[in-house]
């Protein structure tokens, strides 16, 4: 079982609130990722990091921001949540070595009213 954790698992908030989705891994992986997934749809990469103090935007534009101050921690923040942000957010990590898979957290299902 992968040692990657996300909190909260479910979050329902009102429009305009600031939220932070937490992601932590205990595998010492340098590379971490955030994906957004609408119900029954494919995953879209929104942010990634190759190490401490390294963050990049992914293939899908997102109003969220991320930080990587510690290797094990990769939080995602929405400064002002909107209903269009309603989705599932999945965090993943990998060692990045050839042939090594990404390990996924259980996800955070966000609903913005």
């Amino acid at each position: 079982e992968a040692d990657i954790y996300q909190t909260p698992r479910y979050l329902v908030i009102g429009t305009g609130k600031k939220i932070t989705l937490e992601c932590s891994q205990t595998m010492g992986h340098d590379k971490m990722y955030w994906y957004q997934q609408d119900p029954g749809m494919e995953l879209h990469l929104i942010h990634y990091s190759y190490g401490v103090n390294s963050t990049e935007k992914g293939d899908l534009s997102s109003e969220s921001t991320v930080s990587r101050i510690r290797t094990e921690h990769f939080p995602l923040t929405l400064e002002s949540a909107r209903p269009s942000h309603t989705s599932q957010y999945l965090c993943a990590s990998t060692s990045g070595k050839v042939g090594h898979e990404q390990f996924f957290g259980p996800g955070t299902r966000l609903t913005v009213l």
Partner: protein
Amino acid sequence: AQSVTQLDSHVSVSEGTPVLLRCNYSSSYSPSLFWYVQHPNKGLQLLLKYTSAATLVKGINGFEAEFKKSETSFHLTKPSAHMSDAAEYFCVVSDWSSYKLIFGSGTRLLVRP
């Protein structure tokens, strides 16, 4: 550039019958390929992976996949479906130049009693 195409958005089988989920890939070099499974409201779990070793890859829960370079395919099979196999399945190719995964659009497997 790498890409994957999952040929069926939905597959429905009866319990106890074989499962076939189809995936074609495109890669400019020898790829690493993965199948992930996602149960409702869960993260992604790795079923199996191909990394240029044996072309027939065995995974968890009785699933296996065969890498066929001549057909650029990596189909997922299981001899006998179980009700617990009902889930979304993603075929994935890795882009080692960017440490990113390229996801297919997913196949939803329904298992009828």
